[in-house]
């Protein structure tokens, strides 16, 4: 099957290695991976800021680039949710584009969900020695139902010990533009998340969304925690951590 990787704008800019780890995992699961080169952003920042016209423009661009492939896979529950859940409603007024959005939607997956539910990956390529705690990102968890998939994959790595934190399913305070519009509230929420992370004593905090990870890493370091690693699930599964 031909899988088109939606890299996400944050991974493109901040952590390309997550994109390469995702390619490695998809290939390990037997997929042919294509990276459409004109992709940019799914448009979620505009959508959540109330700029519906800009969001619709970028939605059409993304649909056109990804609809030729069997699947769209993103190393982000947030972006996958935007494309899968929100695009059809966003383009509801335009029958042609609405139809194309719906046709794409059912083929859109977050990375761990795709590896477990669709590609049914057999061998996890990476190795990691140590304890990890998993933060559930909001859109992935509550909209796409991503909870067991990353944990199932981690459980298949012999060196990994999962230590669940209190409130793993609570928001980290990122919220996209919320993090820069209401910085002090966002930081206060992040601080609670980081306290819960540190309380587990885990060697690494792992999540499926880079937005959350940048927020958590930024707060951990400002709090003086230099030792907790902050990793994307793809990095740990692919062994690039």
């Amino acid at each position, binding site marked *: 099957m031909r899988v088109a990787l939606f890299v996400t704008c944050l991974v493109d800019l901040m952590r*390309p290695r997550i994109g390469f780890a995702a390619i490695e995992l998809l290939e390990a699961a037997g997929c042919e991976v294509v990276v459409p080169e004109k992709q940019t952003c799914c448009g979620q920042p505009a959508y959540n800021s109330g700029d519906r016209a800009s969001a619709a423009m970028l939605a059409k661009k993304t649909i056109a680039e990804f609809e030729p492939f069997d699947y769209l896979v993103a190393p982000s529950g947030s972006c996958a949710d935007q494309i899968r859940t929100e695009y059809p409603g966003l383009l509801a007024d335009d029958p042609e584009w609405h139809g194309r959005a719906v046709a794409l939607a059912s083929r859109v997956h977050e990375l761990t969900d795709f590896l477990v539910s669709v590609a049914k990956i057999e061998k996890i390529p990476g190795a990691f020695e140590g304890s990890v705690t998993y933060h559930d990102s909001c859109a992935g968890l509550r909209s796409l139902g991503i909870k067991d998939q990353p944990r199932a994959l981690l459980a298949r790595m012999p060196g990994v010990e999962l230590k669940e934190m209190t409130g793993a399913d609570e928001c980290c305070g990122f919220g996209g533009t919320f993090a820069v519009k209401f910085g002090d509230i966002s930081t206060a929420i992040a601080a609670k998340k980081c306290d819960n992370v540190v309380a587990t004593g885990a060697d690494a905090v792992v999540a499926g969304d880079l937005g959350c990870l940048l927020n958590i890493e930024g707060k951990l370091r400002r709090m003086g925690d230099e030792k907790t690693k902050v990793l994307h699930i793809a990095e740990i599964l692919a062994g690039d951590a």
Partner: protein
Amino acid sequence: MEIRSMRFKANASAKLADAGLQRNLRKAKGKFVDTRAVAIKEIDDFEGTRRAARDLRDRVLKDLDLWLERFETQATARGATVLWARDGAEICRHVVDIARRHGVKKATKSKSMLSEEAGLNQALAAAGVEPVETDLGEYILQINDNEPPSHIIAPVMHKNVEQVADLFAKTHHKPRKTDIPQLTREAREVLRSHFLTADMGISGGNFLVAETGSVALVTNEGNGRMVTTLPKVHVVITGIEKVIPTLEDLSLLMRLLPRSATGQSISNYFSVLTGVKQPDESDGPEHLYFVLVDNGRADVVGSEYHEMLRCIRCGACMNHCPVYQSIGGHAYGWVYPGPMGSILTPLYAGIENAVDLPNAATLCGQCSAVCPVLIPLPELMRKLREEQVERKLRPLAERLALKAWAWVANRPALYALGTWFAVRYLKWLAGGGDRIRVLAAAPEWTAGRDFPAPQGKTFRELYRQRQP
């Protein structure tokens, strides 16, 4: 009530800096979350029950006028008088008129958020009627110079026992005590004389039952019964959206309300009050008035925000909200805090008077995940954001920045160039390290957090380099 929602951001910052409040919030956090999680397991099919409750509320709201007429007919047939109030000022006029008609000097009150919307206590006092709040939380706020509530069901969520002890000692002129049973006993002693001497009782209403013309009251302190049965006049003030067709429907919603609110299977007191005192009845008011309030609700019927009117005021959304948990209820600046308040305040008090509220959410979705009537709260906040953009209520710089960014993101070559520069600039700011301490482009981020440095090149550059 005066709207202070335009000062949300500054108020929220002050609440974050208030160490005492933060201690109280930390202590309160999770209490109702944990009890709710246990209580909803008692229901065999919680999801099915929620869907049934949603469908019921939608059915009523679709024909709201008809159900209200039926309620009016039934309530009137049982001796009550139904009055309609377009806004807060009309609520005050009605209640003051009723007080004058019956020569009322003192009115005891059970909890009513509508009376907060109207600022009723001030209007009563100005008309020479002494209002006495009898819900313990509301009473504490009243003796603290009419402080507004910070939560819809736990109005003094933001206070601790020491603060209440100080207030009681100052107001009651009795020795200061911090033992909670002793404090509640003292409140009971003070309030009892008010219950016995009040000429009028004012309550809210959790639901109005159309088939019987009844009001249902859900309380935990018993004050609701004193207020609604002892005085000769009882005035119910509630929103027009609170009507439901039948007692059977009431039982459905009552399976969800206390469990979602406090995690109780049933509240300590649950009253269904119907009509005036009959000759063969031992108690109840001789005169019963319903003041049914619009105050913005009618405009929401049939609008793109109509799902908000399903709300049964349980408070689960705020109990589970990471923003509410961090700043408490006062920062929201009007009657209703948390996610439901971030939608109700702009709808009822004007979208231009509460511009921050729908934006002050991470859209984490926890509120809609726990809502007993499945209100898509994040979706409604997002729609309000769209309306703000359409009506140019967002800052020009923000609107232009979004447009410019989207324009670039729609042009891959330009976007690639832009990110090529951006990533190098960020890397330079990090100065070879793994973090940026001060990011001028995002000062709100780096005031309390570091900004992790980028890897160094964009994915698209590295991917292209890898291609043979």
